[in-house]
């Protein structure tokens, strides 16, 4: 019965909420909030519970709940809650669509996490995909098709994987995996991983993300923070839960890393690098964050590919962190767009003085993104680096490390371009974001801070997941975490940092010191007085770097896809000519067809 309560709370409640908020449009945003709140809060009593059931709606839905499901639900439902909270101010009142589709997406996502057979997985996966598609359609209609095509590509890759699995086992159940030859596993895993990788926007399947992430920001926070984690979950499930370590090792090993996982790790590292480099050159805030998302999920892919306890643990932890900090960033961008109506970094500037709390939350999220040790973002990155270094991978490790340096560049571009620098005259009267928006961001900030001080708490959960999947165990205690080649203690770090911060605070702000606050136009410009000129140096921020990269930036996967599609569409036009609209031709087709039928028939006799 307990699983029914789980199924009810995590899948049916959002579904009912979706229906209700469509019917009661007037209160849709609040209904959405309430129905997102229920699963997010109800999650806590479910920690550590293991249960399973079968729901028969004509097809059998095998559902189960375990710690992996719980861990991923923790991110998804919290992010969804924050997004809905944010949306109460963001979305126009009396609009039912947003809440309905968000809750549909949430139900789909929770269903994916609870599914224990491929049919169920696919049903919920597609439900999540199309509700997200309509949400993308609502605001960035131009590019919704791109999202849809890739969502469907992902689904069809999954179908290929599922089908081959079905061929060997005759069942959709995860637990039915036995007696599949290694070549079968190779194809199954390849298709499943590629399918899930689309959702994670892994290079070269990432081209949908920069366009889809232009939609309504609270939804994008959920899409990037929450739904993309389903890709992580799927890959984790496919590789370590369905196939298992033994089969992965069966492909042969390279320094005790499965030869099957290694290419994906390299792909992930490339994704991290390419995503970062492309993010540096974006002027559109949302696009920048999208490329950053691509890059960060590349790290997760590295961890999943390497498959050591430290790597997979790091990947799960990084996915967790990414869910929260990227959601904050998208919500922060949403708050800025809500207040100013602008999303080009070069058109903003100086908003940190008008929206201090938004700035602080975004700053904190950026600390997490860049991996500054005062947030838990550092710890997950550290785990991934050490995982690559302890196995001496000289291709993956440098790519990841340099990508994280590149992350500082685009992080500063956001900070400087949007929140620092000169405030435009036009934004003189911009107000702080409304309270629900700030509350949403604050909610998301908490875990990043808590797990930076007590990494042991989250590592305990991750350890449970890893043990459950027979990957191995992590070495950690409440404040510290270790790899085979190093380790770090957050308690020492925090105490020292706080002490030193106080010392510099004392040195800096002695008693009775008077400091004059001057206007932003009172700054040194060789004595010039140009008060009416916008002097915010955010346009084309990394131009020198861009010039250097220009020869490489000419090659774009995006354009390659476009060329590919164009080639096919031209072919389609040719094929269309078969329908000549001439009845004589048509009659001839009939004759030819009859001949062919006969010939085939005779041949078969």
């Amino acid at each position: 019965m307990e699983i029914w309560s789980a199924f009810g709370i995590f899948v049916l409640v959002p579904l009912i909420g979706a229906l209700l908020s469509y019917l009661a449009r007037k209160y849709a945003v609040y209904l959405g909030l309430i129905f997102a709140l229920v699963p997010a809060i109800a999650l806590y009593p479910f920690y550590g519970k293991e249960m399973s059931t079968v729901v028969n709606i004509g097809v059998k839905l095998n559902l189960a709940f375990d710690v992996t499901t719980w861990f991923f639900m923790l991110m998804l439902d919290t992010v969804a809650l924050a997004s809905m909270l944010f949306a109460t101010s963001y979305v126009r009142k009396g609009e039912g669509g947003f809440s309905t589709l968000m809750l549909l997406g949430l139900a789909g996502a929770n269903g994916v996490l609870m599914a224990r057979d491929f049919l169920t997985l696919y049903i919920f996966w597609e439900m999540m995909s199309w509700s997200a598609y309509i949400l993308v359609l609502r605001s960035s209609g131009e590019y919704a098709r791109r999202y849809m095509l890739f969502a469907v590509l992902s689904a069809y890759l999954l179908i290929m994987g599922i089908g081959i699995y079905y061929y060997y086992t005759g069942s959709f159940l995860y637990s039915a995996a036995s007696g599949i030859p290694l070549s079968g596993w190779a194809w199954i895993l390849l298709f499943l991983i590629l399918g899930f990788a689309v959702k994670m926007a892994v290079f070269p399947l990432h081209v949908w993300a920069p366009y889809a992430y232009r939609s309504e920001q609270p939804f994008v926070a959920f899409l990037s923070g929450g739904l993309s984690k389903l890709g992580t979950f799927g890959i984790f499930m496919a590789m370590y839960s369905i196939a298992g370590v033994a089969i992965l090792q069966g492909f042969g090993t390279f320094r005790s890393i499965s030869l099957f996982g290694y290419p994906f790790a390299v792909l992930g590292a490339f994704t991290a690098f390419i995503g970062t480099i492309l993010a540096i050159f974006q002027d559109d805030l949302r696009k920048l964050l999208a490329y950053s998302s691509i890059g960060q999920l590349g790290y997760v892919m590295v961890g999943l590919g390497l498959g050591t306890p430290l790597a997979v643990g790091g990947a799960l932890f990084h996915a967790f962190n990414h869910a929260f900090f990227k959601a904050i960033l998208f919500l922060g961008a949403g708050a800025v767009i809500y207040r100013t109506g602008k999303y080009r970094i070069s058109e903003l500037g100086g908003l940190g003085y008008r929206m201090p709390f938004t700035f602080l939350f975004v700053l904190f999220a950026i600390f997490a993104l860049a991996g500054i040790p005062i947030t838990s973002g550092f710890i997950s990155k550290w785990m991934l680096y050490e995982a690559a270094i302890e196995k001496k991978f000289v291709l993956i490790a440098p790519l990841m490390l340099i990508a994280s340096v590149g992350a500082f560049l685009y992080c500063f571009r956001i900070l400087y371009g949007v929140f620092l620098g000169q405030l435009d005259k036009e934004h003189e009267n911009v107000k702080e974001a409304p309270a629900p928006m700030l509350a949403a961001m604050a909610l998301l900030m908490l875990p990043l801070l808590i797990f930076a001080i007590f990494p042991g708490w989250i590592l305990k959960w991750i350890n449970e997941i890893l043990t459950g999947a027979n990957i191995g165990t992590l070495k950690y205690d409440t404040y510290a975490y270790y790899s085979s080649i190093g380790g770090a203690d957050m308690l020492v770090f925090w105490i020292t940092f706080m002490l030193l911060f106080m010392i510099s605070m004392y040195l800096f702000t002695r008693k009775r010191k008077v400091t004059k606050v001057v206007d932003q136009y009172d700054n040194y410009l060789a004595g010039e007085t140009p008060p009416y000129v916008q002097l915010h140096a955010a346009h084309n921020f990394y131009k020198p770097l861009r010039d250097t990269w220009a020869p490489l930036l000419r090659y774009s996967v995006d354009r390659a896809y476009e060329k590919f599609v164009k080639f096919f569409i031209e072919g389609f036009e040719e094929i269309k000519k078969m329908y000549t609209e001439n009845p004589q031709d048509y009659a001839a087709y009939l004759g030819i067809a009859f001949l062919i039928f006969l010939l085939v028939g005779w041949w078969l006799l």
Partner: protein
Amino acid sequence: MTDWANILINAGLTALYLFLAICVGLLFMGIARKVTARIHNRVGPPIYQNFLDVGKLLAKKSNIKHNWIFDFAPLFALAGVLLALAYLPMGGYRLLSGDGDLILLLYILVIPALGFALGAGASANPNAGVGVMRALTLMLSYEMPFLLVLLSLMIYYNTASLTTLLEKQMHSVWAIDVLPISALAADIALQGMMMEKPFDIPIAPHEIASGPLVEFGGNYLGMLMLYSAGSIVVETSLFVDLFLGGGIVLNPAVYGILAYVVNYIVWFALIFVVWMIAIFINAVFPRFRIEQAFKFYWKWPTLIAALGLAQAYIMSVILGVSV
């Protein structure tokens, strides 16, 4: 009782070491000015000149600030650089217990820079924005070879811990003897890390009015000067710790307190040498444009560092040398 005494002694020692480190940094800045002046055939200021400068800045009678974010710069910069110093073994003496993880150190090094960049950005001066942009681009440039160098060390010594690295160097030979190619690349990267010529484009005073520093004056500038003094020690000391055994010539386990004194002196001499190399190059070179710097770093030093990495890889993984 003894616990508290230990903690107090440790705290006192830590404070002493940090204070000494900042002083060494200021002294080095003075020495640099003197040496540069001698190379220019000038007399140059006294070597304690930078102490006077910092004193004057901190004693300035008025300060300006633009907004509350402006204060991030001195606070984060100084706290961050002190934190980095606390994590860095100086003369074999490491202030903080723990594993002294290199990657943690790398990220701690970012804290002051980020705080500084925030304050600079908040000054609303376009020169500051341009300066920070260049600094970050330069960072992306020199980190490429530097990370490869770090990787070669971590692979060769099979550790990510600075403490273990020092111990292993103490028991065998300095890393520069086995990985000279990497050391060369690291030194070139160090030049950019310290923003000495030819890589001082981020703060080019004649072009963008000292870049990120443009709006800082008085107290603020004084704090930032302390930060840059600290970061000189951090950067040179990092190189010494990585390649020159951290200046440890006597094993503290054997010689006790004597070892600490001797090691400190040797460490000082070594960072002085490293700093002098940087200063000599600084004194005679013109300035790279930022894209030239980027191209340079991602070409030659990266190639050298990759060679060094290959050497470390071959020795460690293929030949199976374990230190």
